């Protein structure tokens, strides 16, 4: 066997430093690795003393503690007396200790999923996708998973507040008082404007219409900070109607994306991951004929989608449209009549011209190659563009070119359905701009704002904040006293969606019922309830009156029952829908939409910018999105999939540009455009276009709460309103070094595997030739049978639990991390804790690069406890707190653990987490209600790690036992597996040769992580396969001397 050359740069690398020769052997690195706290500041003794004991020195405290424990034991041989308080009248459906599941919906236009809500003793403790949902099929995204924590946020508005706009002083009022005053003042207003986020509930829309119709001169405007206006406009211009069509990635063999982060932050990402994942799974049984879809990304930044691409073409931000037009030109070659009025435009964007303009990052051959691939996949491809980072000056041209491409290729009606169940997706910005204009002119008397935070997300240049003072009354319905609510006359507490009724229709014909699973924790109301209160202010809602529920039901009866009831009684139909969660009345039409050639009039020769200028692209953060959930610690601490940074936004700079500007990671740079100027920490991001920098929006909230206030920098200010377009990309900026440093909560350097090869990846052509080990990237990943010191475990019971993780379909989105956090009571540690590498996630997504730093390949690897047979942790635990059981689980017994951390040090996968402090105490007041009662909440000094959701195993095993059978395959679903939209994770019984997990583990392209250590993990990874025809490059080869 070939001897590994440890001096060579690794084939897979995490950090750019590793590409320096002899990195892992350098004296400094060895020193670093020898010292646990080489980089990290250790809390001074003083600080620990303060934290623990408030004044008493730590050592004295420990001594005293020893004594007092003894005393306590002696004085109180009886344990503390606990009370049992039963119900007076037990609700029939509640059995203490047994969970109830209710169907509902995660009701946002950006991402809408059917839900199954797990409730214990009347409180929701876990959100899961509704498996019957025809779109998301049981899956839920990151924000959906985390939205549970927002319900229990103790800093939510707890009722209506009257705010003095000048001083900001607030005063609690009752709903009756507030409604009486508000409705009086709204009635006397000549021009009332209601600004909401995109409404998804038909009843909300109707009640608002009812309300506005009694207020002459009023208007309803929808605004969401991340709404894809350019996309909507493109749809409007090209197809006559602004909709978000269905993209059927499971029917597409080729996907070409111009900056649309459809697997990450774009609209309906969960559905997209689900469908895309179906085309990324390979079986080695018929490897020679294996097929998978191909994803090509044309974009300047490293979005989650870009990191999942098979091929990436780098263009400067704002120049994507050039490539799209060149592709149109190539496809229409020899058919000049088809180009119509745009023929002359196309001629100026020939492949050669675009290549020349690109400064070398795009070649004419590449464009022809893509055009050829597209023409080979007519009707089997998808071309798409979207998201905030595609909203450049020429964003509309890009949209039109993309729609044109799809209609040329005949994808409309095949892979893109605009008629079956599209989502109404209006162009919001026109009406918003009109509102801003009216506000500037002082023509608005009253403004009601709900579910959106314009004071935060409008750039200063829009003048929203200053013109608020010209409005007589401003009423905001918000979850927190946020930037907008604190500038209003009334800040009304909004109910969480888990506390309120609604009937949601995001995709036409798919009607969900949103049902409350808990009574409002505070004196809050939903939008519908609030408006009903204004319509009849005298008649306020008593305890037993539920006017909003009655309203929703009446509306449901008229709109849904009348059309789709199929003769069932109203009550029966309503109850059946409540139980199922939705009514599926989608149209079955797959008719293609006709492309309007009139749209081509919008294509002209655009004034380009020289590619050398530094351009800024804004993008949506994978965790915070538009900044609404900023006070959600689960999301703040979720590492960004690509940069692995928590708790901050930062400026992504390419290695080349960083060198030019003298910047390195953690340097603070000043970014200045015509509209805004901010200072941001820098991250040197491999794969960025050389002259494009990018930064996430959604950070820098001024008024969010203890968690979210002041995290990061608000970058919405860079957005510009220019000639009717909202421009968020391709912005020319100046970047300068400030000389200051700022330490980001960067997790990529934590939990390293010491340069041991841990990833296996191959191209599709290699897979087709031999999916087995011969093609494995690194021969050291596989070991022949070797002699073991251990006698081995016997799994002679019916079960042996194991997992298989498919690296080809894992998109790295991080939903599993949040799902695990919710299921297993995993705490958050804060930015400072992350800097010390103390994050507590039981499952993390490791991101590895390979290839050149300018355009690397990326592979994501979900890393969790491998439940090794020869576990390194078990042999070093002095108190037997971690032991192997007869079902293959590596058990962690919290009550035995004394916190030596030997196990953590000895674990080669670095998946064990230590509670340095009582992190659970961060959950104050109501936040305690989020804990899963089936999982122990760990205290300080305890080691913890993935348990394979042992509480779920236990639950299903007991169920099977009581039914006198064995657990069925697929019956136990771990939390990470449950939410994984691309179904990369499969859990099951390895003792059953027919189980899915056994089959997957037998695949020829499966491998175990760090097999060389003979730890024998119960988890098998399926090698990452990329759809690249290219064989391995010389760059890869040189490191295997």
């Amino acid at each position, binding site marked *: 066997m070939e001897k590994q050359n440890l001096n060579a740069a690794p084939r897979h690398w995490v950090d750019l430093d590793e590409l320096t020769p002899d990195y892992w052997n350098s004296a400094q690195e060895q020193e670093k690795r020898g010292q646990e706290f080489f980089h990290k500041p250790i809390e001074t003794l003083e600080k620990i003393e303060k934290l623990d004991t408030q004044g008493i020195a730590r050592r004295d405290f420990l001594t005293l503690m020893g004594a007092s424990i003894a005393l306590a034991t002696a004085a109180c041989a009886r344990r503390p007396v606990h009370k*049992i308080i*039963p119900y*007076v009248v*037990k609700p029939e459906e509640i059995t203490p*200790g*047994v969970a109830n599941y209710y169907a509902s919906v995660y009701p946002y236009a950006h991402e809408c999923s059917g839900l199954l809500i797990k409730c214990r003793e009347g409180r929701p403790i876990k959100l899961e996708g509704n498996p019957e949902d025809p779109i998301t099929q049981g899956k839920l995204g990151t924000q959906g998973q985390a939205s549970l924590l927002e319900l229990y946020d103790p800093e939510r508005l707890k009722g209506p507040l009257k705010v003095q706009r000048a001083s900001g002083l607030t005063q609690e009022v009752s709903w009756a008082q507030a409604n009486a005053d508000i409705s009086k003042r709204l009635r006397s207003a000549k021009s009332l404007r209601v600004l909401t986020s995109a409404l998804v509930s038909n009843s909300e829309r109707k009640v608002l219409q009812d309300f506005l119709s009694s207020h002459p001169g009023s208007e309803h405007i929808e605004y969401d900070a991340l709404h894809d206006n350019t996309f909507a406009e493109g749809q409007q211009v090209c197809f006559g109607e602004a909709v978000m069509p269905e993209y059927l990635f499971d029917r597409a063999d080729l996907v070409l994306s111009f900056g649309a982060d459809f697997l990450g932050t774009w609209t309906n990402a969960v559905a997209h991951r689900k469908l895309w994942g179906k085309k990324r799974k390979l079986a080695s049984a018929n490897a020679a004929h294996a097929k998978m879809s191909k994803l090509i990304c044309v974009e300047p930044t490293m979005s989650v989608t870009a990191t999942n691409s098979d091929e990436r073409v780098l263009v400067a931000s704002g120049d994507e449209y050039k490539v799209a037009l060149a592709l149109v030109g190539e496809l229409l070659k020899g058919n000049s009549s088809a180009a119509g009025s745009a023929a002359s435009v196309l001629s100026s964007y020939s492949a050669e011209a675009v290549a020349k303009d690109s400064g070398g990052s795009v070649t004419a051959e590449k464009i022809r190659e893509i055009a050829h691939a597209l023409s080979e996949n007519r009707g089997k491809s998808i071309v798409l563009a979207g998201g905030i980072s595609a909203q450049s000056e020429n964003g509309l041209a890009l949209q039109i070119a993309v729609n044109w491409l799809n209609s040329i290729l005949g994808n409309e009606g095949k892979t893109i359905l605009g008629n079956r169940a599209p989502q109404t997706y209006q162009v919001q910005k026109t009406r918003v701009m009109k509102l801003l204009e009216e506000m500037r002119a002082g023509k608005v008397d009253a403004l009601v704002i709900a579910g959106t935070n314009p004071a935060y997300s409008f750039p200063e240049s829009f003048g929203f904040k200053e013109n608020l003072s010209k409005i007589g009354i401003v009423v905001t319905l918000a979850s927190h006293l946020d930037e907008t609510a604190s500038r209003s006359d009334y800040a009304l507490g909004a109910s969480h969606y888990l506390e309120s009724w609604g009937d949601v229709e995001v995709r036409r014909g798919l009607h969900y019922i949103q049902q409350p699973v808990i009574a409002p924790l505070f004196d809050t109301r939903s939008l519908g309830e609030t408006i009903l209160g204004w319509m009849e202010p005298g008649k306020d809602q008593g305890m037993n009156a539920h006017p909003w529920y009655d309203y929703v039901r009446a509306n449901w009866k008229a709109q849904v029952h009348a059309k789709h009831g199929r003769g069932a009684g109203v009550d029966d139909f309503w109850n059946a829908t409540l139980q199922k969660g939705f009514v599926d009345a989608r149209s079955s039409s797959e008719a293609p939409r006709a492309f309007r050639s009139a749209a081509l009039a919008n294509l002209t020769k655009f004034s380009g910018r020289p590619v050398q200028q530094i351009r800024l692209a804004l993008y949506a953060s994978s965790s915070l999105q538009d900044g609404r959930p900023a006070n959600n610690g689960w999301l703040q601490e979720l590492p960004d999939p690509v940069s692995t940074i928590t708790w901050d936004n930062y400026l992504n700079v390419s290695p080349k540009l960083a060198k030019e500007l003298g910047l390195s990671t953690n340097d603070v740079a000043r970014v200045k455009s015509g509209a805004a100027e901010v200072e941001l920490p820098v991250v040197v991001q491999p794969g960025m276009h050389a002259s494009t920098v990018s930064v996430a929006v959604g950070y820098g909230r001024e008024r969010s709460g203890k968690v979210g206030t002041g995290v990061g920098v608000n970058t919405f200010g860079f957005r510009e309103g220019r000639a009717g377009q909202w421009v968020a990309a391709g912005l020319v900026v100046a970047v300068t070094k400030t000389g200051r440093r700022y330490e980001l909560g960067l997790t990529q350097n934590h939990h390293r595997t010491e340069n041991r090869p841990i990833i296996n990846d191959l191209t599709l052509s290699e897979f087709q030739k031999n999916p087995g080990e011969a093609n494995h990237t690194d021969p050291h990943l596989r070991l022949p049978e070797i002699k073991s010191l251990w006698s081995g475990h016997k799994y002679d019971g019916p079960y042996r639990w194991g997992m298989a993780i498919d690296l080809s379909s894992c998109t790295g989105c991080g939903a599993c991390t949040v799902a695990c956090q919710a299921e297993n009571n995993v705490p958050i540690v804060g930015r400072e804790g992350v800097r010390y590498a103390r994050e507590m996630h039981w499952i993390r997504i490791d991101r590895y690069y390979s290839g050149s730093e300018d355009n690397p390949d990326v592979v994501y690897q979900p890393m969790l406890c491998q439940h090794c047979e020869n576990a390194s942790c078990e042999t070093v635990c002095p108190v037997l707190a971690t032991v192997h059981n007869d079902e293959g689980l590596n058990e962690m017994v919290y*009550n035995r653990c004394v916190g030596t951390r030997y196990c953590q040090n000895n674990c080669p996968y670095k998946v064990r987490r230590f509670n340095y402090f009582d992190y659970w105490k961060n959950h104050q007041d109501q936040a305690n209600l989020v804990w899963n009662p089936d999982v122990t909440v760990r205290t300080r000094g305890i080691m913890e790690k993935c348990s394979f959701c042992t509480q779920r195993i*236990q639950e299903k095993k007991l169920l099977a*036992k009581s039914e006198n059978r064995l657990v069925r395959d697929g019956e136990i679903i771990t939390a990470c597996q449950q939410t994984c939209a691309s179904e990369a994770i499969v859990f099951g019984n390895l003792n059953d040769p027919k189980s899915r997990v056994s089959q997957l583990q037998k695949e020829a392209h499966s491998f175990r992580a760090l097999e060389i250590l003979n730890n024998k993990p119960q988890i098998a990874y399926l090698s990452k396969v990329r759809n690249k025809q290219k064989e391995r490059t010389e760059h890869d080869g040189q490191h295997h001397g």
Partner: protein
Amino acid sequence: MSSGSNSQASSRGSVRKKIGLFFVGVTAIFLIWTVICLFPNASNKGYGPTQPIPFSHRLHAGTHKIDCQYCHSQAERSQHASIPSLNVCMNCHSVVKTDSPYIQNLTKHYKEGKPIEWVRVHELPDHVRFSHSPHIRKGIGCETCHGDVRSMDKVQQVGDLTMGWCLNCHRNRAAPSDVIATVRPKGMPDDPNHKGPLAPFSCSTCHY
């Protein structure tokens, strides 16, 4: 850590503190020893607190032979056996023995919607997960763990409820013969003296 003129005073103070701590330490060791002698297995066996209403199991379950699960109806379905809610009591006591002051107290609670705060007798530590349901479903009698509640006026803890005590049955070290007869797993020889595990005893069965 202190500086200047305070240093002498504080060092004297710390000597005094150390002497104090030494005595505390000695006392602690003595007390721990006492505790170990008094409570060899740290069990709460014999604990029987006074309840807010002197409900008698002897009368209900013993004399009147009401089935345990009439009131503790969730034992078969849930991890908790559960104390019955007041409406279960009122099923009978809206007509039975309404002249008793205790029943009047009970009725008052029920009408006012105020639950009764019973004192918990059987309690496992927080890090132990025990489910009634599989035990009941296997046919293990309540009295195996709870003793002869039918004869108790005031409920007392009879079993040790310690880990060793649980494992005695699970591992079949000292399981009562009726338990062995009930739960003998499939394939186990039909020999009442057979020694072999009766139930899972890996850590994660109870600790997670």
